[in-house]
């Protein structure tokens, strides 16, 4: 076994543990951000008792959930009941591998990064479905079925909206895509329709507000995780927010030039300073989109299930195909 292989494996293991550990503080930060922003939008204070100006409130929520007793319903199927939250959380954590935080700082620089990302993201559908079935409760069954139907039917427009960008950039690797965006124009200018479809589908994929049918508490009590308590519920709760961070990260990497600085600033610096520079810009743009998702949650009511499905199949899918068709023609004609 030659030396680089060991070095590569070591680097990969270090990177994955680092990312796995990164997911927890990300979830804490986003939960805290959401609580504060929704509070300000509702003209109220929001948590301000725990820690200076209340910034540790979400951490406290996390640890309290850790310290709860987790009950397993009597007739629930114990095996799958305990497996489901793990599946949902792993789907979110594994898909962080391919996010390009900075020029060199990518956990795994696959050349098929995008395909890997969408494959792994589909795993969370299975987790919710299994949770819904295993907890032996009508509400969670209905919630599980709804979430499966919603996420499956929104993955297709999600993926198709990317293909336009990929056809333009000619690569499936995130870093090369960003490199392409550095030379040419940012992809959201080249693919305005693609960005729109991607953003709407990503909201539905992550069950955020206009489409949060899964946890529609006014109808089904709490969707598939009605029967979950304690740390198992914590897994679901965190997985939702980590997935939101990842979706924003991917959106930024694909369409808004991942770690590239916008026009007035130098696009990219080299050396260690460049990495920090890239990380700063990446996190700034990602958290702008997370803010928009939280903003939507505060204002918009919920879409009904059939409207949700109708929009996916009748509106977003044809639009994505047309967008792909036009992009392909443009690429062939102008022979980019």
């Amino acid at each position: 076994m030659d030396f680089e292989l060991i070095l590569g494996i070591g680097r990969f293991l270090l990177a994955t543990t680092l990312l796995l550990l990164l997911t927890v503080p990300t979830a804490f930060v986003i939960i805290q951000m959401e609580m504060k922003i929704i509070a300000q939008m509702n003209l109220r204070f929001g948590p301000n008792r725990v820690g200076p100006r209340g910034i540790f409130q979400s951490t406290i929520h996390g640890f309290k959930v850790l310290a709860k007793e987790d009950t397993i319903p009597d007739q629930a199927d114990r095996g799958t009941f305990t497996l489901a939250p793990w599946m949902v959380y792993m789907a979110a954590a594994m898909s962080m591998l391919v996010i390009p935080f900075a020029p060199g700082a990518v956990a795994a620089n696959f050349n098929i990064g995008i395909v890997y990302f969408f494959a792994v993201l589909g795993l969370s559908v299975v987790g919710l479905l299994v949770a819904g079935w295993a907890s032996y409760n009508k509400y969670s069954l209905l919630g599980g079925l709804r979430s499966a139907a919603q996420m499956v039917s929104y993955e297709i427009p999600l993926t198709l909206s990317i293909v336009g960008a990929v056809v333009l950039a000619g690569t499936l690797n995130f870093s090369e895509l960003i490199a392409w965006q550095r030379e040419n124009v940012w992809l959201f200018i080249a693919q305005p329709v693609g960005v729109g479809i991607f953003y709407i589908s990503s909201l539905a994929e992550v069950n955020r507000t206009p489409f949060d049918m899964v946890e529609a508490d006014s109808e089904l009590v709490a969707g598939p995780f009605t029967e979950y308590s304690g740390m198992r519920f914590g897994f679901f709760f965190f997985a939702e927010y980590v997935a939101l961070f990842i979706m924003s990260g991917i959106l930024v990497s694909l369409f808004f030039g991942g770690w590239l600085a916008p026009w007035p600033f130098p696009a990219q610096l080299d050396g260690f300073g460049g990495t920090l520079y890239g990380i700063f810009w990446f996190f700034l743009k990602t958290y702008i989109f997370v803010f928009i998702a939280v903003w939507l949650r505060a204002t918009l009511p919920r879409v009904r299930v059939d409207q949700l499905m109708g929009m996916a199949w009748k509106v977003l899918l044809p639009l994505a195909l047309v967008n792909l068709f036009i992009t392909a023609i443009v690429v062939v004609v102008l022979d980019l």
Partner: protein
Amino acid sequence: MAVDRPTTTDETAPPRGNGPIVIPDQAGNDPLLSQFGMEEHPQGGFHGLLEVIPTKADYVLDLIRANSLWPLLSGLSCCAIEMMSTATSVNDIDRFGMFPFRASPRQADVLIVAGTLTTKMAGPLVRLWEQMPEPKWCVAMGTCTTSGGRFKRSYSVVQGVDRVMPVDVYVPGCPPRPEGLIYGMMKLHELVKQRRGEWRTYVDRGPQRTRWEGDVR
């Protein structure tokens, strides 16, 4: 380590609520185990192992629990409107970490019984209480909940929630002002923090039914 709740057959268990509610205090009388702060549970198994960990951890745990009490989204009558106005912009319960009113009893810590408890609603309410996972507390909000209130003489009102379930904090008032409810929640914070050191993983509240006649399947 998740202590699984001992399953009891509910035929033998006496129907709860008829007799007076006795909250068993620390049974721990077995000489061999008591010095470690452990005792044997009537249905077998031990609990109370946590006492072995020094109290500092329990102190931190209680602080965490006190500052993040999630109330259950359930209200019976007029007090529910005052509970809602406690959660709104003017007087905000989210400041104390209580905002996400959880809809499912599995994820709730506090059951704020807000309103008149009638005999027809007593069954479902007891079921809600039993479905909530441990470290759970109950706040009886309003005089109707505490003692039947202005409807005490009625034929269909339960004269006080403590006839059916153990209550931790009583909030007087008909309906209590939002500030009154927040004062009650602060009292609950102190009560949670007082239990430093002697908190157990599994509070023995008598034989718990795991299968309910009216379980929503």
